[in-house]
């Protein structure tokens, strides 16, 4: 990542010298394609912490919240996670019932593409190497893009999220400056539940 940053910085510096762009300033009056490129570049920025909160809502009282806190340290990516699950009644006729939900927790460490974890197994896999969010005009509709925010309907969810998904009504709201402060993605899943991916970034 640092290497990429150096290269980009060098290129931008050269470009600035040539007067072709205003690196360091908020994107304004740029060609839209450039602005989306800038957003994609923000995905590669250094953040001290990223908190991803996934909320699955099934009815007015039933929702599951999972939280992944991502941080870089010692050349590795550490992810602390807590994942909610509904508890089955299981052994029946034993009164009273136990809690409605249970929470699985643990910490995963990703180093050189390999993933290890301690704690509860929540099915994390290292198959994210080629997947990432991708901002591009063609994946959006009803776009409201400013220098500090993006609001749009996502018409190509798979291309946006970086993996296959069956859903409807995907919407994204992102807040940014030089880097992201928030990306909030919502959609309706195939089973009718609503899902929210909320990324909160700490520079």
């Amino acid at each position: 990542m640092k290497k990429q940053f150096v290269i980009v910085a060098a290129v931008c510096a050269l470009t600035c010298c040539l007067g072709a762009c205003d690196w360091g300033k908020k994107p304004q009056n740029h060609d839209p394609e450039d602005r989306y490129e800038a957003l994609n570049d923000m995905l590669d920025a250094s953040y001290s912490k990223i908190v991803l909160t996934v909320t699955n809502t099934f009815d007015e009282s039933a929702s599951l919240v999972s939280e992944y806190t991502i941080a870089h340290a010692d050349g590795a990516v550490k992810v602390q996670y807590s994942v909610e699950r509904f508890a089955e009644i299981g052994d029946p006729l034993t009164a009273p019932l136990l809690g409605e939900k249970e929470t699985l927790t643990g910490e995963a460490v990703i180093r050189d593409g390999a993933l290890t974890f301690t704690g509860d197994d929540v099915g994390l896999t290292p198959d994210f190497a080629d997947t990432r969010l991708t901002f591009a005009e063609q994946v959006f509709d009803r776009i409201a893009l400013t220098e500090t925010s993006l609001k749009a309907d996502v018409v190509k969810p798979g291309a946006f999220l970086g993996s296959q998904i069956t859903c409807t009504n995907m919407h994204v709201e992102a807040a940014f400056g030089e880097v992201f402060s928030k990306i909030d993605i919502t959609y309706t899943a195939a089973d009718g539940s609503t899902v929210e991916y909320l990324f909160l970034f700490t520079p």
Partner: protein
Amino acid sequence: MGKSLKKAISFWLCLAVGFGLAAFYPSVVSETTVAGAASSANYYSGITATGGTQLLGQVHDLIVETHTHYSTYTDCKTPSIIKKTDPGSDSSHVMEFYSQADISASWGSGAVGTWNREHVWCQSHSNGLWGESGGGGDLHHIRPAESRVNSTRNNNQYGTVSNRDSHKIYYKNAGGSVVADAGYNAGGTFEPLDKVKGDVARIVMYVYTHYNKGANVGGTLNSNTSGTLHFTDIMAPSSESAAIELLLEWNESDPVDAIERTRNEAVYEIQGNRNPFIDHPEYADAIWGDGHYDPPVSDIKPTSLTITPSAVTMSVGGTQNLTVTPTPSNASGEVKWSVEPKNIVTVADGKLTAYAEGQATVTATSTLDPNVKATASVTVKKPEGGGDGGSTTAGSFTITRSSFSAKSGGYGFYEWSAGGVKGIAFIYASETGKMQFNSDKDSCYVASTTAAPGPITKVTVKMQTGSKSWKLLTSSSAYGEVEGKPTNGNDHGTETVTTGGTSWNVSGTDTFFALTYQDTKAAYIDSITVEYGPSQGEDPTPPPPVHEHVFEYEDYTEETHLVGCKTCTDYLEEEPHVYTDDADTTCNLCGHVRTVHTHEYQYEQLDETYHTVTCKGCNEVHDKEVHEYSDSADTTCDKCGYERTIGGDEHTHSYLYTDRDDDTHTVTCETCGDVNETEPHEYSGDTDTTCNKCGHVRTVADEEKLAAFREAVAAISSEGTLAAWRESINEAIVAYNALSETEKTIVESETETLLQEIAAYDRTVQAYNEAAQKANGTAWKGAGSFLNG
């Protein structure tokens, strides 16, 4: 909660949950009559054999064919089922098999004083045919037994235990108290109580008959998990004959009782088949012993009769069997035979004997309805030739399936008779519409054992279906029973026989024939016509015309009348008077009037034990009787007035009642100890909790709690939110756990509903968890740029 979400429960989730909950939600057999099961009144209407392997085979096929629902091992422990098949004295008990005493209906999973499932025919002696399915789940077979009795019996074979009283075993309750005797066990042999031996024997015979392969027992069908069983597998005697002898002894010494009859009906409703040895214990001796079974004559009137063959051509001196088939098939086939004119041919029990040339009509009239008749025409040919000693009788006889008297049975040699000629054929006797042969069997041919009236000139064979190859042999000597096919005699070649008929023309003097099957698989012959030419012989002498007596009756003595014929002097017999009943004073036949005397008894003291009984009117001494008293304190005989003395060594018992278990207390006399009995607790009513005699306190069902549980189950709803659904289930579970064990047995239906709701809830949350995991996985991939170092 969206409705689409509910509908979106995946198939595999349902399957996984279904298997997972099998332990909690046992399959429930429908308690309605099995669809298609025949009425028990007509269940045995197809049994026509009288004994031996034929009867065994028919019974085997019947109970296999009607076994339309195979119960499961789980069914055998389901209280709602066992309460029907093995009811106890009340709804909270079932009957323990080996002691026939009450045991709590609740499934106890092996705890002392509770019941579990007893394989009467142990799994380890089933030659691998069953464990917990097939015969191992058959409700006619599996019985509830107290767990310790069950484990003590283990897999011991049934037999006679020497010095059995010193090896008695008991059914004990959880407290260790003896509830009842349960049998005798020693040296690897288990002997049931005398009152249970017949039950065991009839179960063993059922299992043997059902689960042996059809071929082993003379049947044609194979059942679920059938194989080879021997009585020595489960009975202690070392030889099959000794094992059978013991079973027959137990079958007789412990007759069928109400317990078995109730059970048979209950299992019949569930499975569709019956234990034939409970309905007809006489089958056992008829099959394996020296007995004989007479199938009952149907009392159903036929709507029509059919005689086969309906047209007969015979030669003078020949015989032909006619058979009658009623419609419907279960109607009575009993007929009275008659023939007109009487001097051409006679008929007796369907057998024709031809005496003179001419035409005759034979009539079969139903004995139940004289308006139901059938006729057959008979043509009798006069033998050719004159009195110079060279008389000839050219003619023919036709062999069809009706030429055989056997109407049931497996493959074997059976006799036929046609046109005065007799023979044998190796056919499948239960096929009554055609002569069925099969190349796979030990033999496959038909032959004559008596000579045709003349040298055979032509043999014509017709198949009923298909075309098959046959060879004709003729000989001057009789053919007999051989394995395979006969080869002796003159070979007239092999022909392909068709439904249109194929003939061999024969020359020579042979009067015996054999038709041997030369093809493969099954073959079905419709008819074999054998033509023969003139022969040397004497003219047969026709019999005198048959005379039918016209009886008349003449009063003879107080007890008898004479029976004679009005038109001849050949008949004169003395027979007893015939009255309608004991009160009837006039003989129905001769009109003799008798005096009916009604005894008026008087009693006279004889000794301290008996009095005599005589009739005042006829002074006939009938017998002596034991004195009769109203109760143990009564001192005067109710009949003869004898005064007895009570006292001396006798005393008035002082009863002591001691609580024994939840159901019984013991009754003893505090002073003499002579009284030592067990009797059930005595309560004033359904709500009374304390036994009036021993003080035992019982738990009576709390109707309010039962109602609360029922209401809570009814209130469970998945229509609202997940949390509300879970809460409603939780309230029902709380209400359930507030019930006593007795109360829980009352609400088994509502409990099953609760379990179903729990299963549905679990399926739903599993789907939710799956969906969340999938969404999390997508988010994880979307965060790939943040996760790559």
